[in-house]
């Protein structure tokens, strides 16, 4: 599949690029407002080979959608969400996004880079997160260092304040359900230890071209700004994920709606009233005849989560996303 074709895809974002010079916001992608502009001032989407980048309502840190990035090992290429903003040579950058990984053992790479492209040279990568063997790493002073053990199906909020002139950043990472940051680093050298390294783009990919990753991950609420004073999107309220019954309820009531849809709608209502056992019964009944099983399985996994049945939650999600167990 050619990259030109890939550029035509994607219903994504809300970007606020250079036309608002007084705004501290360089980039803001919520993935919820249906704007579809790809291009040199916003972003490119590469859906090469069997990998994919697409909007998804399976998981979201806020709103009702996020972007799913799915790589396939051995398919000869890798998918990518690549975004652009006006080149910054000095001042501060505030970087924020939310990240959820299905299988942390699969490789992903996320980078903020400049005109030197995605390498560790000056004006190349300044901020680089990656995964290795289930850990989240950042590369600082050309050394990949472990930050934390990633949990599957868990939202992480990434906040970095980057001093471009000094080439150093502060990094905080929040985990869904935990109020205090699980990572808090101050004044660490940028990826290649290059003070003054300029930045103008960011990228979300699987592996770096080695074609060995089967990662599936979700990104939401991407913000790049010049001032911490801006109102960053609230990270998922600590301790509470957004549930599919809230974000994607069954279609509105219609006289001839299929039985499965009616049952799902009743299940949603029971879920909202936190009658979880009734919600589960209705969802399971709906599942027997529904043609849209994915949403029902995810809703059942939300029910299992709220009932504290994490084994069932995992099993239900694995019906859609595959097993996390060692292969």
């Amino acid at each position, binding site marked *: 599949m050619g*990259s030109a074709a890939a550029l035509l895809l994607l219903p994504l974002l809300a970007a606020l690029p250079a036309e608002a010079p007084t705004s501290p916001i360089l980039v803001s992608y919520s993935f919820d407002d249906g704007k579809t502009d790809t291009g040199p001032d916003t972003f490119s989407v590469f859906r090469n080979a069997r990998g994919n980048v697409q909007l998804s309502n399976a998981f979201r840190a806020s709103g009702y959608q996020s972007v799913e990035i799915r790589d396939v090992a051995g398919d000869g*290429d890798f998918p*990518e969400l690549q975004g652009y903003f006006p080149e910054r040579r000095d001042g501060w950058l505030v970087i924020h996004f939310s990240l959820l990984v299905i299988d942390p053992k699969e490789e992903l*790479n996320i980078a903020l880079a400049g005109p030197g492209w995605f390498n560790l040279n*000056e004006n190349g990568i300044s901020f680089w997160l990656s995964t290795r063997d289930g850990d989240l790493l950042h590369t600082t002073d050309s050394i990949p260092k472990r930050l934390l053990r990633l949990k599957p199906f868990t939202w992480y909020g990434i906040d970095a304040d980057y001093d471009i002139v000094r080439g150093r950043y502060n990094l905080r990472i929040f985990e869904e359900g935990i109020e205090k940051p699980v990572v808090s680093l101050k004044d660490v050298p940028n990826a290649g230890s290059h003070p003054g390294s300029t930045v103008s783009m960011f990228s979300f990919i699987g592996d770096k071209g*080695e074609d060995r990753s089967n990662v599936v991950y979700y990104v939401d609420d991407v913000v790049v700004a010049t001032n911490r004073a801006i109102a960053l999107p609230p990270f998922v309220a600590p301790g509470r994920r957004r549930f599919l019954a809230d974000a994607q309820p069954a279609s509105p009531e219609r006289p001839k709606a299929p039985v499965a849809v009616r049952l799902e709608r009743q299940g949603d209502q029971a879920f909202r009233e936190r009658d979880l056992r009734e919600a589960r019964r209705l969802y399971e009944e709906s599942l027997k005849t529904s043609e849209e099983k994915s949403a029902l399985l995810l809703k059942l996994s939300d029910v299992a989560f709220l009932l504290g049945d994490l084994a069932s939650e995992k099993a239900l999600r694995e019906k859609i996303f595959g097993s996390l167990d060692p292969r």
Partner: protein
Amino acid sequence: MGRWRHPRLFGMFLLALLAGSAALAAPAVRVAGLVARDDAAALREIGPPAAAEMIRLYLAGDTAQRTRIANLFYQLAWKSPEAANVLMRDVHTQDPGLRIAVQYALGRVSDNPKVVDSLLQTMMRDPNPVFRDKAACALTYDQVHLSEAEKVRIYAGLIQALASEEPQVRAIAIQSLHIYTGQTKGFHPIAPPEKRQQSIAQWKRWLAEYKESL
């Protein structure tokens, strides 16, 4: 660092994959024919099982045949200890074409530390500057099966080479380190010795921190 996308690279890998697409024939005969035609794309379609026949052809072949097969192993990048073993037999050959082809191919078929050690020795001690330079290239670009931990061996060797008496060795060592890390830490191969020593001390501290992070 891998091949993070650049506009000039778009599609090249796919085009290479699409280049050869003949139907499979009897493996041994077919592999010999594909080797004779330098057809890496078609060999890739057969997959690593073709390596055994390629190794047999390598052992039976003359210098030109060995060079051709080493170049094919380089392109295919199949991890194969058996291929590494036979290639290592020619790692010190004085035939320039075969020597360089073997140096390049070794890292792409193996993660054996002996390969890294051999290339480091060639880079630092071979009397021929061309072989030294190509060994540095192989260490820099072709060690595709090494983990971050296994790369410590390369970094340590390159930092050791910064102290070489031979300016060209110092130059290719810092060039390789720069490609790996994006940094020189102020090292210049013809700077005064005390200045070089300061940079080497920085590189040693960096290596210690790198090891700690593993």
